[in-house]
Structures are given as structure tokens and as C-alpha cells.
């Protein structure tokens, strides 16, 4: 389904490695199965030929890795960024989290990535191989006789269905064409929840958040969660909490986490992508984004380096907290 090929990426990286522009490449490496690609560092073209993969499962946003990798590596690091990843990249630059000079960004177009859970719903478990063939994903499983062919558009990840931008807001080299910010229906689900009664909303979230096993995957994948020490791991923070120890901790964790990234979250969707329990965590972030847009004017974190997050800004005419529900649908 991707318009760009693995070979094009390897060629581009090899050239930059060869001419000394970069010393290392941060890319997707093969995991145990075809779909569980893993962020991997490559030092040579040869290593890439052997281990680099690029397919419909390369969803991982690499921006976050730059914070730690740029501090330890010699020379420049090449990183492949999809349009949505570049917003996180800019946001991290805004927050001075790494040195721009140490990174070489190759912007790559993205046609939307696949959600393995949706694939499995069609193919069943026991995937032994998986490959892209044009617009199709071909899956071989241990239990089926023939390979299953799936239309890639039917298994798009939720965040790709509601892709907000095909535009790269940062790059050194761009492969493919310059894209545009696209109109998306990403707030529809938030609006749907807003139109529920409080009881319905409560039931919805009670059900979702009850599933949380507190694995921290959302936090660990989130490009906005790059704190040196997370407040939940810090005994001095007063909210330290490493496991789901009592009945309240979960939504405390998720509300605080959402608030910590509010105004900084680029809506990249990594939190929901990595959640093993499929909790729609991105909706919490989108709620903040939607509110910020409504209350204080449109703001897209990461759209430009150095922009001021609405929560660290104000105008003297801002909405009062008592006015936020005025005009919103009320339910008995």
C-alpha cells in the first residue's frame, strides 16, 4: 500500500551514510513476526540490506527516540519521519529536547498504516508471514490452508483513518511529494461522547479504563512523555504510582497524563496504537485539543517550532471556567 519502497529508503540512507552526512540510521528492523517491526539502529548499508524493513506495519513514531539517541551517538543520525511524526519532531524541538544539528530527517510519504488487530480479526491468529502486495496485505497463518488476502484500506489504523496531515512540517530531504494538511473527522468520536449523557459517558470510560493493566506502554510510546523522570516514577512527586494499586489510580493516571501532554500533544495516536488493551486513549488527548481549539483558537502542537502552547499562554478576555458548558448540549 505504501507508495515508497524499502529499496528507495535504503538507497537514500546508503547515499547519506556513504558521503558521511550521517553516521547512523534509525529505522524499522524486523521483529519476530512480519508485523512487529522494532526501532533499530543501522550503521552501514549492508546492515540495512539485512535487517531493515518497510511495510504497512511501520507505524512507530521515531521522534521520541531522538531524545536519548542523539545524546550518545557520534555524528548525525538519520531518521525516517512520516508526516504525523514530524509534528512530534517539531514539538520536541520547541521543548529543546534534542539538538536539531544532530539529526538528518528524511521525510517519507505515508498512505496510512495497518492495524494488526484488525488484520487478525480477518485472518485469525497464528500469523506465520505477512507481506504487502499492491493494495493488499497477504497473510499466511498456521491454521489456514491458503494465504488470506486483505484489502489494506479495510485494516487501516484508527489514527490513519482520521489522518490530520499529509504535510511534513520538518525535513532535510523529502521523498515523494509535498502533502497538505487534510480535513479530518478526528473529533467526531469526541463529539459523539460529548453528546451522551454524563451517565453514559461515565459508563463508557468506566468500561474502557477498567481494562487498564497499567503496563505504561502509552506513556513509553508517547513522544510528549519524554520526561527525565516521570512523575509517576518519582517518589517525591506525591503521585508516584507504579502499579494499579487501588480502585482510583487508573483514571488518575490517565487524566494526569493527558493533562501533562495537553497543549503539547500532536495527536500522533501512538498511545492508542500501543495499548495492549485497545483503550481509546487518544480520545482523552483529542478532547483537550478540541477544547483548546474551541476555547482559545485553533492550535496544532508541532506545526511550527517555538510556538507557545495555549496552556502556557492567555488573553485577558479568555473564557471563564463557568462558561465552558454554556451552549453545550444538556441532557436530563
Amino acid at each position: 500500500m505504501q507508495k515508497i519502497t524499502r529499496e528507495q529508503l535504503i538507497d537514500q540512507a546508503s547515499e547519506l551514510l556513504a558521503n558521511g552526512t550521517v553516521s547512523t540510521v534509525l529505522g524499522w528492523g524486523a521483529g519476530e513476526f512480519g508485523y512487529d517491526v522494532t526501532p533499530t539502529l543501522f550503521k552501514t548499508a549492508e546492515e540495512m540490506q539485512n535487517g531493515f524493513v518497510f511495510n504497512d506495519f511501520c507505524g512507530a513514531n521515531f521522534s521520541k527516540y531522538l531524545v536519548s539517541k542523539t545524546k550518545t551517538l557520534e555524528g548525525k543520525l538519520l531518521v525516517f519521519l512520516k508526516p504525523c511524526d514530524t509534528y512530534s519532531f517539531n514539538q520536541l524541538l520547541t521543548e529543546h529536547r534534542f539538538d536539531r544539528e544532530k539529526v538528518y530527517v528524511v521525510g517519507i510519504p505515508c498512505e496510512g498504516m495497518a492495524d494488526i488487530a484488525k488484520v487478525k480479526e480477518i485472518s485469525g491468529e497464528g500469523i506465520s508471514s505477512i507481506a504487502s502486495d499492491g493494495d493488499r496485505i497477504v497473510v499466511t497463518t498456521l491454521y489456514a490452508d491458503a494465504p488470506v488476502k486483505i484489502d489494506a484500506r479495510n485494516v487501516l489504523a484508527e489514527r490513519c483513518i482520521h489522518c490530520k496531515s499529509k504535510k511534513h512540517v520538518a525535513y532535510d530531504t523529502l521523498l515523494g511529494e509535498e502533502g497538505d494538511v487534510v480535513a479530518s473527522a478526528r473529533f467526531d468520536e469526541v463529539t459523539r461522547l460529548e453528546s451522551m449523557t454524563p451517565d453514559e459517558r461515565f459508563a463508557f470510560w468506566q468500561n474502557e479504563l477498567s481494562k487498564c493493566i497499567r503496563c505504561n506502554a502509552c506513556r513509553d510510546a508517547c513522544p510528549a512523555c519524554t520526561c527525565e523522570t516521570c512523575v509517576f516514577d518519582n517518589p517525591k512527586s506525591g503521585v508516584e504510582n507504579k502499579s494499579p494499586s487501588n480502585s482510583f489510580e487508573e483514571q488518575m493516571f490517565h487524566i494526569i497524563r493527558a493533562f501533562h501532554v495537553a497543549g503539547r500533544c500532536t495527536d500522533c495516536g501512538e498511545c492508542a496504537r500501543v495499548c495492549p488493551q485497545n483503550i481509546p486513549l487518544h480520545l482523552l488527548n483529542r478532547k483537550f485539543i478540541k477544547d483548546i481549539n474551541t476555547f482559545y483558537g485553533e492550535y496544532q502542537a508541532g506545526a511550527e517550532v517555538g510556538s507557545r502552547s495555549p496552556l502556557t499562554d492567555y488573553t485577558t478576555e479568555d473564557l471563564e471556567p463557568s462558561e465552558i458548558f454554556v451552549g453545550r448540549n444538556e441532557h436530563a
Partner: protein
Amino acid sequence: MQRVGVFVCWCGSNIAGTVDVQAVSEALKNEPGVVFSANYQYMCSQAGQEMIKTAVKEHHLTGIVVCSCSPRMHEATFRKTAVAAGLNPYMVEIANIREQCSWVHKDVTAGTEKAIILGKAAIAKVNLNTPLTPGESPVTKRALVIGGGIAGIQTALDIADAGFPVDVVEKQPTIGGKMAQLDKTFPTLDCAACILTPKMVDVAQNDKIRIFSYSEVTDVRGFVGNFDVTIKKKARFVKEDVCTGCGACVEKCPMKKIPNEFNLGMDNRHAIYIPFAQAVPKVATIDPDACNMLKNGKCGICSKVCAAGAIDYKQKDEIIEETYGAIVVATGFNPISMEKFDEYAYSQSKDVITSLEFERLTNAAGPTAGMLVRPSDGKHPHTLVFVQCVGSRCESCAEKGKEYCSKICCMYTAKHAMLTRDKYPDTEVYVFYVDVRTPGKNFDEFYRRAVEEYGVKYVKGMVGKIVPEGDKLKVQASDLIANKQLHLDADLVVLAAAIEPDHSARPLATMLTASMDTNDFFTEAHPKLRPVESPTAGVFLSGTCQGPKDIPETVSQAGAAASKVIGLLVKDKLTGNPCVAIANELTCNGCSSCERVCPYGAISYLDKEFRMPDRTTKIRRVASVNPAVCQGCGACTVACPSGAMDLNGFMNNQIMAEVDAICK
């Protein structure tokens, strides 16, 4: 673990009437860390304080909780008691069981219960208190005054009078400001130059004062007590210390058609010029945009005629760096542009002028040597129309003008009208007004004199349109009292243009991290109680940069600002408030969120090297709070995503402990 002593005050029956104080002190006895608990009739009395001191010694207390009246009442008292007992003053917490308990609740059970909970919260907090020591910083005993008008002049003179060195930065070639352009001053009608120029001379002759004229402040760093300021002294192409101000160069300069700013363009000056006779410093300045020598390398006459050899065509801008303990902003005002008010035909007729132009027109040292004539044809005007409130008191949606009242126009217009009628009894003078505002000593009497003794015709109503036709100005106006539309043929129209802060103020405010209102007036630290201080410590306000003012008000504010500066400079060291923000370098991400919300610019960043567990080192950007600048609001603590920012005296874990104690 802290050893806490609890002291419950009865406040006579004020507390004891609704709260069972005995029960409170009993209940709190068993709280964690509490080793002593007692109650007494008046804890703030001598005996009560002695009781605390004794208990500290006998029970080796490390922390004190006083359950009493509001901390706003006696926190300072009990902190002193703690110090007297050998404790750090910040080891005291107050549980407010009077104003916020016994006085607002009637039920003894409920009141007692609440008092115990408030006591528990204070104990929970004090258990986490740490001794705090206020930071100290030295004070550079020199002041900077930005702006050399009457406000800056008065401030500088007063500070110098107290023995401190002062530098005055003025962007024009001379100090004096707007007041130097005025003719007479209301309500006493003494001549502006007669009262201002001696002060200008005083400034020049004061050995504590340095004048940087034709100069601008380009950078300000540092904080109260130690501001590092960069001043750009623009090249005037004349050696200031050599020039005698004889004026020979000016006479001979062939470029003589340059609009004269001092007379608001109503006559011309030369390319080399001295703004006016009493200029300070009285030295010539070459206008680089007009001088043929500087532009084309041709001429050089001024250099030839200068006996002192003061001309230096090669002179460059000079950068001066100096440290100051305090900064006074005195950047003043300007009349607004009349561009958007062309219904008054300002751009179409030379005989429609602003009030400041009228001042020059009637000034003996002005373009007409004080003769009131029409700028267009030099004829004597017979009918004069003054229009008040031009651009003042405009609603923002009108998209032109200012929302505020410019304050000075009513009085100077009365003055103009009165002086005109006095000197030229053959004139008819109309003043169109919306309201006449004359609060001030002898102000209303002055206005009434203009009407009653001098026959100035005050008309309640605005002018709607002015049409220049032939040699007349056809004025169409309202007379609201007569309910008529008036049509007058005037010879001269004077517009009382609104005043606005000088345009240099906004960039300066940014440099100073001083706040401004939407009109670009500097904001005072408190509108009533701290009117001459800006919210930024060490930055003071003088004159119209803070709001529209007349001369007496400006001078009193200038003096007030000076006294505040003197109060600061007499100190050798500044003791800060120890309840300031602190950044934990280990957990700080260096993300700048805290810096964005800090109203004082107290946070900066530095690259710090950290030793990692694997023995490598890592360089990270971390926040650093300047305790001398931080005022302790805590905005940064919430903006910080990693919780690295905390606030002394109101630490995250302390507030959380209070919450826990209350909600237990």
C-alpha cells in the same frame, strides 16, 4: 522526623466560644510528629509567646503549629517567636481557626471538628517544612533613568540629591522632552521654559548625573540590584566634549530646508543643528539623512568653520555597558497621529493644527516668534475653533483613537483659549467639548475664568466636519444645549489630539520584562498602593509612561519614583523572599514551559553536565531560578510537566499532605 509542638489559642472567647479548644489540643496530641500540645488564652500575648519558647527548649521542638487567628494577622509574630526560640522562622505553620472557623460557624461540635482537621492539615504540612533562608544579593548603587523629559529630569535630580550616581538616557539630542516645547503652563500661566530650563541646567551641572543624549537602551539583563544595561550612543558627528555650542556651524550650513522637529515641522532647520537655544547638552548634531558631506562626501563647511575642531564625520555609534541597581522608566508621550481623523481636514489644510503645534505657534521662541498667525498665509486669525477629545474616549470598535481620557486636554485648551483672548481681544474663540474635566487644584477656577472673564465660547457638542473652502474653514458642529447644528467660518482650528505612550516604550517593556496595558502604558505593581513601581522588582515608573498626567502630577510621581529608588539603593544587600521556586536539575527536562509562564523572567536555562550511573557524562539543558527575581507565585510549578519545579513554603508534597489531612 519533625518534633512538632501544637499551640491552640482561645483568643479569649473568640475561638473558645465556638471551638472546644481543650478537645482540639487533646486530639492533635496524637498526630504524627507531635510531641507537645497545649492551649492558652492569648497565644499572641507576651505570656503565650513565652510558653512557645519554653516548649521549644524543653521538648526540643523542630516545628511549631499555632491554631489561632489568620496567618495574615499573626504569622509574622509567631515567626519572630520561633527565631527567638532558636528555630528557623519558616518552621511555623498557622491553622486559621478563628476567621475561617469559630467566627463563621455556630455549632460547637462542627466547629471543633473542623478546627481539629485544620490543625491536622497544618501539622501534616509542618512535618514537611524545611528551614528556609532568604537569598541575598548585592546592590549596585547607581540608577538609570530612561527618558529626559520633566519626569526623567526630576527623578534624576532627586536621586542625585541623595548622593547616588544617575545616568539619564534620552533619544533626542537634548533633554527637556515635551515640556520644553510648551509655551505657558496651567493653571498659573508661568512660562514652561522659565521653570524647566533651570532644572535642565541643574542636571547638566550635577556631578552625580551623566546625560546620554541621542542615545537608546538596547539591552537589559539581570535583576533588581544588578541590571546589566547596554546603551547605544548614536553618532552625532560632533565631539560632545569639544563642541562649545557657539552655533557658527549651524549658520553656515547650506542644507537649510530640513523640517524642524522641535517646531513640529512648522519651520526649517539646518542639517547641523542645535534643537533650541537652551538645549542640554548644548552641542550640535548632524542629521545624517540631510547632510551632504555624510551622504555624498561633498561640503565639509561646518568642519571648516568650527574653531574648536569638534566636527567628526567619521564618528561611529558608541556602545556603553553599565550596571545599575534600579531603573526608572520615563519615556513619556506623543500626540496621536491625526491621519484617521481627516473629517477635521488636518491633512488638507495647514490651518488645522494640533494643540502641541499651537503651543509652538504661540511660543516666543517658536516659528513665528510668538505671533499667532495662520500657518497657510501668515494672516491674523479672527475666529478660532478648538475641538476637544479628538481621538480620546473612543470605543475600541470605532477603530480609531484611544479608549481613555487623555486628561490634560481640557486644561491646556482652556489655557490656549484664554491666552488667545487675552492677547488678541479681537478674536472669537469657540471650544467644542464633550465634557469639561477639571479636577485639580485651581483648575475649575481657571476654566471658569476663561469663560467668564475672557469670554471664551464653550459649546457642548462635537465638531462633525471641517471643510476648507477659500480662505475659510467651514466648521459644522453640534450645539447640544441649543439643539442646533452650527455652521461657523473659522480661520484656525486647533485639535486636542489624544496622547499615547511613546513608541519606544513597548520594546523597552519587553527588555525590562515590565508589563503594559493594552494601550501600551506601563502597568504599576498595584494601582493604588504601589503606583510608581512596576511589577518587575527594581523597575520604577515616572510620568506619562504610566498614564496621562499633567506637569504637577508628573513631577510628584517623579519624586515618588526617586524616593523608591533611593530606598533601594541605600541598602547594601537585598534580602529576598525565601518562598521562591526551585528547579530540580535531576528531573528537569529543560523544555521552557516554566519560562513561558513566568511573569518576572526569573527563569533561565543552562547546560549542565551530569554524571550517569554508567560513568559517562551527559550534558542537559536545565532550568535555573533567580531567587532575587522570583516572586513565588508558583505558575511554573504547574506548567512543568515533569514536576521538577517546586515552590519553597508551598511544596507539592506539603499541599498534597494538607489535602490528605483534610480528606482523611
